[in-house]
């Protein structure tokens, strides 16, 4: 990152104020990435790309204008500023309530995420060999069924930003990330197919490959998928049972039914035509949503996390946010606009995907607080139940109330012991039912990676979501026939 970029964003902020904007923000944002993809061990191709530019945001007479340019000169950002200013001013006549930002103590800082093993610690040949070896291990794991397809990819990225605004923020950051993903299809013509899409991602470098243990886990999973095709029986759906929900699903549940509905911009209706509204209304802080085990935290500051940052894209210092706390709705995710509306302070949730994106309220790393049980203790007093370890299909309504998770790997529980595999159990419950039925959590906190989509144009930002394995009491399951 060179001083010219810093000069351009500082110039943009000065120039925007000269134009007459009430607030000006400029962000230099660069993302470079390399990726390679294989199918059944054979290389498809290798890509190395970058995108960089400057985003500007202005407040003019209570209207918000945004513009982006990839022309990294004073003239380039000046033209973008003029566009943002002009559009904001022309739309200010349609504003019924003026947009204002909360007062905040903003950062003047520079930080970088740590990388123990750099991207050049593995040669390109090693990386390709890694994916080829993954295919060999996967296809050798079955005895009756066949691994029909294994599409896999390995990707490296580095995100650099300089955020400057007219309220005093000046934050430089650098975050490298590694990701690995695959789609596997296990087929047995007489029984059908099982498919699983899975990915890992984190900030840092190749130190993560050892931690993820994908070489060991995927062959084990493939063996299990074969057994599902051969042996799995129908889950109990005719009566309420206890359900042990695996951490992979718990992570998604808290992301979808706590993190999203806690986004204050959604609560205020800003995403109503896209990602929808929220069952949480502005006056619901303090209301009960679940049991004492329902504590959900969103924390951007977790070292190594996929959603890692220390200052948001409005320059506000990050901290953990306790969204649900011991069963109560506790805190919303705020940027400076929503904080002003609610008369509070931003908790640094403003994130943007790239230079072409406005900062909006986003999650970072969302997880359910773990308990102190072992997994065996979770299961041991379940007379009849189902343990759903992983999923494929899921969705949730646009107010984040009715949610559904199509189980993939799942087991019957009888008298405190895991029995045989069951096929296609579906957990389809309301948010209130999920958190209220929660009566235990084990201590095995695990995180999963995702790209969370929101905004218009759609912005995908890297996140983690996670949690322990948990137990729900008295749930009626569905089954996909």
């Amino acid at each position, binding site marked *: 990152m060179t001083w010219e970029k810093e000069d351009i964003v500082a110039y943009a902020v000065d120039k925007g104020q000269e134009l007459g904007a009430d607030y000006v923000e400029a962000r230099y944002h660069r993302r470079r990435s390399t990726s390679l993809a294989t199918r059944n061990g054979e290389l498809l191709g290798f*890509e190395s790309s970058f995108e960089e530019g400057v985003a500007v945001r202005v407040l003019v007479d209570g209207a918000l204008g945004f513009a982006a340019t990839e022309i990294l000169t004073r003239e380039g950002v000046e033209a973008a500023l003029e566009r943002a200013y002009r559009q904001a001013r022309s739309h200010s006549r349609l504003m019924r309530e003026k947009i204002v930002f909360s007062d905040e103590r903003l950062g003047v800082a520079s930080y970088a995420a740590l990388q123990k093993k750099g991207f050049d610690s593995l040669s390109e040949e090693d990386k390709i060999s890694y994916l080829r070896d993954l295919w060999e291990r996967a296809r050798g794991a079955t005895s009756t069924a066949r691994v029909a397809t294994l599409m896999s990819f390995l990707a490296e990225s580095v995100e650099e930003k300089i955020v400057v605004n007219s309220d005093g923020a000046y934050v430089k950051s650098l975050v490298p990330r590694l990701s690995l993903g695959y789609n596997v299809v296990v087929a047995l013509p007489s029984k059908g197919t099982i498919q699983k899409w899975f990915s890992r991602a984190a900030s840092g470098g190749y130190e993560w490959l050892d931690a993820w243990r994908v070489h060991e886990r995927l062959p084990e999973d493939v063996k299990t998928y074969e057994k599902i095709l051969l042996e799995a029986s129908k889950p109990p759906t005719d009566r309420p049972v206890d359900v042990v929900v695996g951490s992979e699903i718990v992570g998604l549940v808290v992301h979808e039914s706590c993190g999203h509905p806690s986004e204050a911009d959604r609560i205020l209706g800003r995403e109503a035509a896209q990602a929808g509204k929220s069952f949480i209304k502005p006056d619901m802080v303090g209301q009960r949503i679940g049991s004492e085990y329902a504590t959900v935290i969103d924390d951007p500051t977790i070292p190594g996390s996929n959603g890692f940052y220390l200052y948001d894209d409005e320059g506000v210092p990050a901290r953990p946010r306790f969204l649900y706390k011991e069963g109560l709705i506790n805190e919303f995710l705020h940027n400076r606009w929503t904080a002003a509306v609610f008369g509070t302070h931003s908790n640094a949730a403003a994130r943007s995907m790239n230079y072409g994106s406005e900062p909006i309220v986003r999650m970072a790393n969302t997880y359910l607080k773990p308990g102190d049980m072992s997994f065996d203790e979770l299961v041991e007093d379940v007379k009849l139940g189902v343990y759903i370890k992983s999923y494929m299909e899921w969705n949730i309504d646009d107010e984040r109330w009715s949610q559904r998770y199509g189980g993939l790997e799942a087991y019957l529980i009888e008298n405190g012991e895991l029995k045989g595999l069951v096929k296609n159990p579906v957990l389809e419950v309301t948010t209130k039912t999920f958190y209220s039925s929660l009566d235990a959590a084990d201590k095995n906190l695990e995180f999963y990676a995702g790209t969370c989509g929101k905004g218009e144009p759609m912005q995908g930002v890297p996140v983690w979501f996670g949690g322990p394995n948990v137990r729900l009491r008295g749930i009626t399951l569905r089954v996909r026939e």
Partner: protein
Amino acid sequence: MREELLGVGERIVKRALELGFDEAAVRVTFRDATMVKFANSEPSVAQSWKDRSVDVYVAKDKRILGTSGSVSSIGEVEEILGRLRALASRIPESMLYAPLPEPSKVDFMEGLVDRRILEAISDPSDVSELIVEAVHRRSVDYFAGMFEASYTAKALVTSTGTSLYEDATGIQAYVRVFAGDGSGQWSLGSRRLDEKRIEEMAEIAARYAVEAKNPVDVEPGTYNIVLSPMVAGNLMNYVARMASAMSVMMGMSIFAQKKPGEKVASEKLTLIDDPRNPELPYSWSFDDEGVPTYSKPIIERGVFRTLLHNSKTAAKMGAKTTGNAGLLHPHPWSLSVAPGDRSLEELIEEAGDGFLVTNNWYTRLQNYVEGTFSTITRDAVLIIKRGEIVGAAKKFRIADSFPRMLSHLAALTRERYDMYWWEVKPPTRIPYMLFRDVHTSKHTG
């Protein structure tokens, strides 16, 4: 603009060949766009983009590599190409490699640029005001939505001698209107700006919002369901994307175990990959390999006709390119579904007992090969009893499979709508569609 973009493409192709690559294809894109986003019946932000980007495909000894970046940092693109050239000798051949096609004559579509959209890019506030006013002609509470006006110019230069340029305008608009406990949403995609169509979009969304008031709980089961163009468009998007040969190769398609000529749907269904429809955004005259596009059925009268190919997937699967190339992956262009012969009233009457579902989101698959999926309704769900709308229902899920639903398509309307929003991309011209015996689901507690 033409000379500028072609010049960038020629420079990068030349540099790639100087570096020792055997082949290069370079797409240079200019975008000028403005988007106004609405919430609570007022603009929440006005966004504007003006940028030039470059996407590069290169090959050396059957190794495939690529890069992309911004035109203003073209020096860095060239630096990356240098690194890729050094890398090419160290990686294996690509399983997908096939030579770039030789240049073909392209018949360019006329009328892809609308001057009025260019004016709206510069100042969309009059259209914004029209949307606010049109939605509130009915007695509704508020709305959210967006309007985008865009101009795109693209140049394609390849080492085989292709040198092509095309430009086009487009709009995307949608509103979600709220009235009491009801809501309705509708969308529009077009290459031309027509205020009457924007007013019609607002009117339909507002009407559905009012009709959706006072919804009642309904039990999950098996129902005859009329899908609006919003919902049908979303599901046909999935079918079309699964018709990409790359989706088949990656195990992400219901067509993985099908061959052209096999029956995959009711004979009522004809789904067309429609890049030569100049009225729909995503209509272009040539693909990313310079191959002329043409409109063709993916499914014709229920029979699977066309897997969408670029030259690489075509070579791998013993087929011919269908003019659907992205630089690596083939993809559908604009889509259309052939109309039926019913009015909407006749379709509802034919449904007998069931539902009219006007919007959905969050379609997710349990298994792409088997096509099992669920999607959840949003906005107006209208109850049909004895062939008439009698009230509104609360949300539920459609939880079924694509092969099963496609075989249960019973009838379509004559009138079609041009849908384009979050859940319908690529833009799709599509009628209301009646499906029989659709499985639905709902939370158990």
